């Protein structure tokens, strides 16, 4: 599990450079990536379904990104993208394609639906966090 976290850190690091992130932001963004994968594995070890694990991981990493964006005054996307990248269901996409090509319609529909649900879970997690943070932020502005 620690090894997997290290792998996801390095993978996100690669992506951070591909996305042209610079300076200390590279490190913060890659830590986000390893954090999300760690949470995902942790949730799976606690016998949660794949979708729930993805949702919780995406939710927490979005909170992390929002906090870091406020702290270091960078756009939120800088951190969100690298944090979310390891969770993106590339696995599911591949197997959906594979089963479709090999003519196994039952399995391809199943994995296709699962992939869509997974992607939806991640999307909803991002939506919830950024809507909540917007609410909090507005409240702060009015008070001040």
């Amino acid at each position, binding site marked *: 599990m620690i090894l997997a976290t290290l792998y996801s850190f390095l993978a996100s690091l*690669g992506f951070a450079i591909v996305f042209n992130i610079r300076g200390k932001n590279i490190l913060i963004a890659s830590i986000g990536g390893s954090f999300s994968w760690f949470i995902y594995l942790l949730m799976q070890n606690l016998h949660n379904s794949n979708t729930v694990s993805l949702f919780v991981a995406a939710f927490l990493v979005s909170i992390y990104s929002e906090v870091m964006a406020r702290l270091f*005054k960078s756009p939120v996307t800088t951190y969100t993208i690298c944090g979310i990248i390891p969770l993106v269901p590339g696995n599911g*996409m591949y197997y959906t*394609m594979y089963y479709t090509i090999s003519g196994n319609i039952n399995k391809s529909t199943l994995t296709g639906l699962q992939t869509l649900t997974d992607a939806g879970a991640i999307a909803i997690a991002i939506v919830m966090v*950024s809507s909540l943070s917007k609410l909090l932020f507005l409240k702060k502005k009015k008070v001040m």
Partner: protein
Amino acid sequence: MDTNRVLNAATKAGKMMLESGGETYRVEETMVRISLALGVKSIDVYATPTVIILSAKDEHNNNHSTLQRTYGATFNLDKISKINDLSRSIERKHLTIDDLEREISVIEHQKGYPDVLTILSSALAAGFFTLLFSGSIKDFFCAVFIGAIIKYTIISLSKFSVYSFFINLVGGMEAALLAILLYKLNLCTHYDKTIIGAIMLLVPGLAITNAIRDTINGDLVSSVTRTVEAVFIAIGIAVGTGMVFKICFRLFGGMNL
């Protein structure tokens, strides 16, 4: 105050942000912030991933408008961050239009990471994704090799402004073809893990994230455009890998890959 110059600078900043992969609301907000800070009376901006329309009133109530077509999106989150900072610092540091124009052109001419570094880092990213999806150490090296070739193809194809669907199709084909070839040569143990690691480089992460964020902010036109873009990229990858698989099944017969 020269309204035309201000609006030109704002449009240039907006165009750069949009082409670096910024969210729609951030582009609109930045352009409004720049213009208002430099003394434009009122302004309306409408941005989509392909066009920015801007209309403003100066102090004599004359209307000015610009329309800027934008082409393609690259990834340069650093540029977005810098322009965002710049627009916020205008009021704080009392920048004039000359300072702003200078700063914008500095950011515009700033070079991204050299191609070699990008290729190297995406190769490593592909390799570590393979390990993440429980590939073996042999698969790691295969994915690194394939990842480097895919990134090289992306960079060289985008110089000819090829449509992104085709780029992803070629990327998917390369991933599948090379992985199966290496598998046949007995250099990798799981061709599927290798392919998954390699196609993670093509997965439209930025397009999806931006589509979601545009949806929340109510920029529905942009969100639909970006969702379609993401879906087409995904279809491109699937078609690319699928074509190679289909051909291989025909050549080698059945599923005994």
